[in-house]
């Protein structure tokens, strides 16, 4: 920050004649004097008093409701939220959980006459398990059971038209096994037993 020589202040205050200051200070004195004259001069154009300006503002017609609404919409406002970090972490966890559990695969849309057959079998040493029956023309390999957690329990959920079906499991592509968890069994006329599943319509 530059400091103005006190002799310049004395000249500007009229306490000292301009010629009394040294020659090197005279240009600065002249500049400051010109600036002071500019500030002291009245503003250009007609002079409007504060009172008349206030009254003009009061008399101006009120803007329409739409205009006020538009002004409110485009005017920036500062919004301050005071949130504890623990609550914001909890909120984020809830949003993440909802996203994970609700936005996943919703499964097939079931028609009015359709239901879901659940097939479960325990085959600890199996490499593959399929369910074969009257619902797939006894075609091996078309509906595979899965053992996702490798605990030996194989599962499949299949959408079928409501009705009664006979079926068996085919383990490792060659071993035909009835579903021992199914309570309904019937002789297959080939020396073994088929399991029976009754599919009820899911929408009732």
């Amino acid at each position: 920050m530059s400091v103005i020589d006190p002799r310049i202040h004395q000249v500007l205050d009229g306490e000292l004649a301009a010629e009394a200051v040294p020659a090197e200070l005279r240009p600065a004195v002249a500049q400051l004097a010109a600036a002071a004259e500019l500030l002291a001069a009245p503003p250009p154009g007609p002079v409007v008093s504060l009172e008349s300006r206030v009254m003009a503002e009061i008399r101006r017609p009120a803007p329409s409701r739409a205009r006020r609404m538009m002004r409110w919409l485009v005017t920036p406002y500062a919004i301050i939220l005071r949130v504890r970090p623990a609550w914001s972490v909890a909120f984020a966890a809830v949003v993440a959980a909802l996203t994970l559990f609700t936005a996943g695969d919703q499964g097939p849309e079931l028609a009015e006459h359709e239901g879901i057959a659940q097939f479960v079998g325990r085959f600890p040493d199996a490499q593959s398990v399929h369910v074969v029956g009257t619902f797939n023309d006894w075609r091996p390999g078309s509906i595979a059971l899965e053992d996702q957690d490798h605990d030996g329990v194989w599962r499949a959920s299949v959408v079928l038209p409501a009705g009664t079906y006979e079926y068996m499991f085919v383990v490792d592509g060659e071993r035909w096994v009835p579903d021992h968890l199914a309570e309904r069994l019937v002789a297959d006329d080939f020396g073994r037993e088929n399991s029976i599943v009754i599919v009820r319509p899911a929408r009732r």
Partner: protein
Amino acid sequence: MTRWVGLALSAFLALPLPAQSVRGRLEGRIPSTAIPAVDSLIQFASQEGLPTEPLIQKALEGGAKHVAGPRIVAAVQLSLGQLRDARDLLVRAGDQPPVLPAEMTTVAWALRRGLPAPVVERVVAAVPRPPRATALHAVADLVAHRFDPDSAAQLIIDAVRAGVPRERLLDVSTAALQQVQRGHTQAEALAIVRQQLPNVPAPARPTRGNVAGARRPAAPVPP
């Protein structure tokens, strides 16, 4: 040449529709030597107004299980006999011919599940058409768990008369089985459930996970 093609085409079109579709479904699925015999059995069934799908399924089942051709033919013949027995039973019970194929399939299933013919006839006579299949399965479920067939049939008939909806009849038999699991005798279980009619415990709904993971088979066959 054109004449022969025309004759062959006429002969093909003259065949009944089931015969055309059946051979296509059987070829490559059962031993070729068994196809003519199975095909003629299916033609007999079609001419008699019997359902053919159970016979086709039996043949396909035998082929999938790598059963020899003669045994497949024998099994299909046995199934044909069961369907004829079912039709005769339905007529005896009061159904007017022609009997519906679905009814014959249902009754044949009940007989295969071990229900005595008189009990099946009694249920058929007492229960109107829509809930018959479920009613017979409900009785068969009880008989499979050593309930007296006549008493089991009476409970299900009572349930129908009490207004239990068709889709809830299996819950009636399930409720009786649960009473046995709680330590009651079969007779006590039937009495307890009969007192509760028409209220029966609701079945378990499929879980969200099971619905979400469900798949459709490539070509489901209507039952």
